[in-house]
């Protein structure tokens, strides 16, 4: 990371302590100061009153992963915060900021060797009528990072509607108090460029709109709800429509209905909702109705841990549909890519007339971060091929060389047809003939087989005889681990797949040319990605798997260590 610097800080406390509010303001202040930043969050299962932690990484480079450990852990109180110990690794160089009035920091944190700096957060807040300790903690953290008081105040003015002046005054007290601590600030001054501050879920929502989505069916589910909530007013502004469905069976079918009507459509969900939608995704395949489902993955099986991340829906997304049902699966591999990947998925669904699943996850979806302004139009997919009025002897499912046949939009005279989940002839009439079944299966497979995704199918970086193959939110820490390995003189390459279905065996073969060792990295228990790679591709050389279930994200050091141990063996 030549010339690249970052600092990781966490702010924890019980529910209602305002750690997310303060965390968001800290991220905004860092962004306004010109830094990159990423905030991920963790919370207990309680609706209100549960413990929560905002985890921030402020940096001089764009990054999508958490670091190995946190330099600062600040806690408003210690109630149940110890439950997050595994998610908040500290080290001997770390600093624990806590209010002595709330008791000593739990042993699970202090045994790391971290230094404890007591700061009377509550007492300092009391000096300002109407102020809260979270704002004092915000001031302390801003000073420790090296943010200016001006950036902090500007962020507070942007975020706070009531209690603004008291909040600013409290933050200033924390800021001044932190000046007594030695060894700070932690970050050099940043460079400035036009950037966005955005969550992964917002990015996916905006990508959907850029892709042309104008109908969304919504059923709330953690951690996808914010995506739908962002889309609701946004769609209304651009002339689109959002309907809240009674369940996920309804939401996917509403989206199919709207798309049949000619309007690009989407729904967003998480694992349990995707499971309910699967039957109707098969309908989208058979009837050739474009639709996009964003799956913001959380830990499973069943209800799992609703608030925390895992990459374990890969299997159902790829293979969950009954029958032979070719469809598209795209996985964003960074927060910014939630926008580009979703936009691309809409384009693929529309141009190929198939359902597309976007496999995001809680880590990316609920992370808020500073990203470079996205380039316009990430995808190169053609719009939906529609039939024109007055077509004679229109055949909805005509056997074309590309497999894509013109889709008549209701209202078009002379081209009426019935979209059908029953197997059908070229005209769409239900058919139980073996020949029609084979012809239509070939047609639906051909659409995907002929897809040319260009370079968008994967992010490929570096070369060398060792390759790290991964997807999704594991890409951020993987990229950072490889940067460290390269800095230590190793030649390593990264292949992060963005297009999971249809598989691209020839492209991966080229990407892995000359590779003797393949490390497959994924965040699930059973190695779903490894099994997928083994099924769809010929992996060269020796293959190893680095995996664990959610919710603990991979950290660069452990990936780097796995690579080093292997090369050394």
């Amino acid at each position, binding site marked *: 990371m030549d010339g690249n610097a970052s600092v990781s800080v966490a702010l924890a406390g019980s529910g209602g302590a305002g750690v997310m509010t303060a965390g968001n303001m800290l991220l905004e202040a860092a962004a306004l100061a010109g830094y990159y930043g990423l905030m991920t969050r963790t919370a207990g299962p309680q609706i209100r009153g549960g413990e929560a932690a905002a985890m921030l990484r402020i940096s001089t480079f764009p990054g999508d992963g958490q670091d190995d450990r946190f330099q600062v852990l600040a806690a408003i109180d210690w109630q149940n915060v110890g439950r997050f110990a595994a998610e908040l690794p500290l080290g001997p160089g770390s600093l624990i900021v806590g209010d002595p009035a709330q008791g000593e920091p739990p042993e699970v944190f202090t045994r790391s060797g971290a230094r404890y700096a007591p700061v009377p957060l509550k007492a300092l807040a009391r000096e300002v009528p109407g102020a809260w300790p979270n704002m004092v903690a915000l001031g302390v953290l801003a000073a420790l990072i090296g943010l200016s008081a001006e950036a902090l105040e500007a962020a507070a003015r942007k975020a706070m509607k009531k209690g603004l002046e008291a909040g600013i005054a409290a933050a200033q007290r924390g800021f001044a108090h932190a000046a007594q601590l030695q060894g700070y600030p932690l970050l050099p001054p940043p460079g400035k460029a036009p950037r966005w501050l955005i969550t992964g879920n917002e990015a996916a929502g905006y990508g959907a*709109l850029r892709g042309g989505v104008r109908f969304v069916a919504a059923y709330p589910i953690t951690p996808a709800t914010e995506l739908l909530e962002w889309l609701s007013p946004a769609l209304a502004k651009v002339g689109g429509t959002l309907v809240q469905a009674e369940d996920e069976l309804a939401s996917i079918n509403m989206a199919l209905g709207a798309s049949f009507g*000619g309007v690009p459509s989407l729904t967003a969900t998480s694992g349990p909702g995707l499971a309910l939608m699967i039957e109707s995704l098969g309908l989208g395949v058979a009837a050739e109705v474009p639709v996009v489902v964003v799956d913001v993955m959380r830990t499973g099986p069943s209800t799992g841990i609703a608030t925390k991340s895992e990459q374990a829906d890969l299997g159902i997304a790829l293979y969950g549909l009954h029958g032979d049902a070719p469809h598209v699966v795209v996985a964003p591999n960074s927060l910014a890519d939630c926008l580009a990947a979703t936009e691309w998925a809409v384009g693929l669904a529309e141009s190929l007339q198939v359902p597309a699943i976007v496999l995001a996850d809680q880590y990316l979806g609920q992370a808020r971060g500073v990203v470079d302004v996205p380039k316009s139009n990430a995808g190169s997919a053609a719009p939906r091929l529609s039939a024109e009025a007055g077509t004679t002897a229109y055949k909805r499912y005509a056997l074309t060389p590309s497999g894509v046949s013109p889709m008549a939009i209701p209202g078009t005279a002379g081209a009426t047809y019935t979209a059908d989940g029953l197997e059908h002839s070229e005209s769409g009439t239900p058919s139980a003939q073996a020949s029609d079944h084979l012809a239509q299966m070939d047609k639906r497979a051909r659409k995907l087989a002929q897809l040319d995704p260009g370079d968008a199918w994967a992010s490929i970086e570096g070369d060398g005889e060792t390759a790290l193959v991964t997807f999704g939110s594991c890409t951020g820490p993987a990229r950072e681990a490889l940067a460290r390995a390269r800095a230590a003189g190793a030649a390593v390459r990264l292949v992060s797949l963005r297009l999971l279905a249809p598989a691209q065996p020839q492209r991966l073969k080229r990407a892995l040319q000359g590779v003797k060792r393949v490390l497959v990295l994924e965040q699930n228990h059973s190695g779903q990605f490894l099994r997928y790679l083994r099924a769809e591709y010929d992996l060269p050389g020796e293959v190893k798997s680095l995996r664990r279930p959610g919710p603990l994200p991979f950290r660069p050091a452990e990936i780097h260590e796995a690579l080093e141990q292997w090369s050394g063996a």
Partner: protein
Amino acid sequence: MERRMNAPGVLAAPAAKDFKSATKPVWCPGCGDYSVLSAITKALATLGLRPENVAVVSGIGCSSRIPAYTTCYGFHGVHGRALPVATGLKAARPDLTVLVTSGDGDGYSIGGNHFLHACRRNVDLTYIVMDNHVYGMTKGQPSPTTEPDWSSKLAPGGTGLREFHPLVIALASGANFIARAFSGDPNGVAALIAEAVRHPGFSFIEVLSPCVTFRPEQREWKTRVHPAPVEPTDDPGRAARRLMTDDGFNIGVLYKGSRAPYRPAGGSAQRIEDLECQFRL
């Protein structure tokens, strides 16, 4: 919501036969659904609609085969989900006339939840349920409207369960138009469908449509049906009492409400780039 396209010199108004496709139905001879298909085509002609401006949506079952037997745009989806498909279609394309055809298994059992919410949402749809108190396509299992003592292979001696009361449930859930029809009187069914399409909001027509194969005793329905003895009411309280006490063979419009149909938010058309200001630092 229908668009009349039969202005002089433009296009002749299609007749009922123009709404009937060449596809041969899979139904048994004597099935009540033939008459419902005829009634739909007759109603669409009466309304002066053109096939390309009408969509017929269905799920799975004997009655759900109807879309492909019309020349309209059709959507034959999965079991139980016709109402959500139609809801999405109508919300996205309010210019279309959308009919939904279903049966007692598809509509009241697997799709029961959507029935409640479609009534409540009051989207401008016409929902035609052909009720024969049996799963016909799977060859004779009890449905939610089957009598408790009707014996079958799956439930020998009967289910012992009370029948579902679709009209009462529709009323309680907020349907804006509730009628009962009998397939033995296709002209009557056609008139009710035309009236339902004209009525704004969610219109529900339960059509008693005999299954001559698995419920041959339903041939006797023709002797039991009778016109509803009173005019339709717009008072849900009166309608509830009427529906709770009726014998199940009252034919006609039983309730006509005046609730405004569902209108999703939206309408303005900013450039989508205007949304970016919220992300800019």
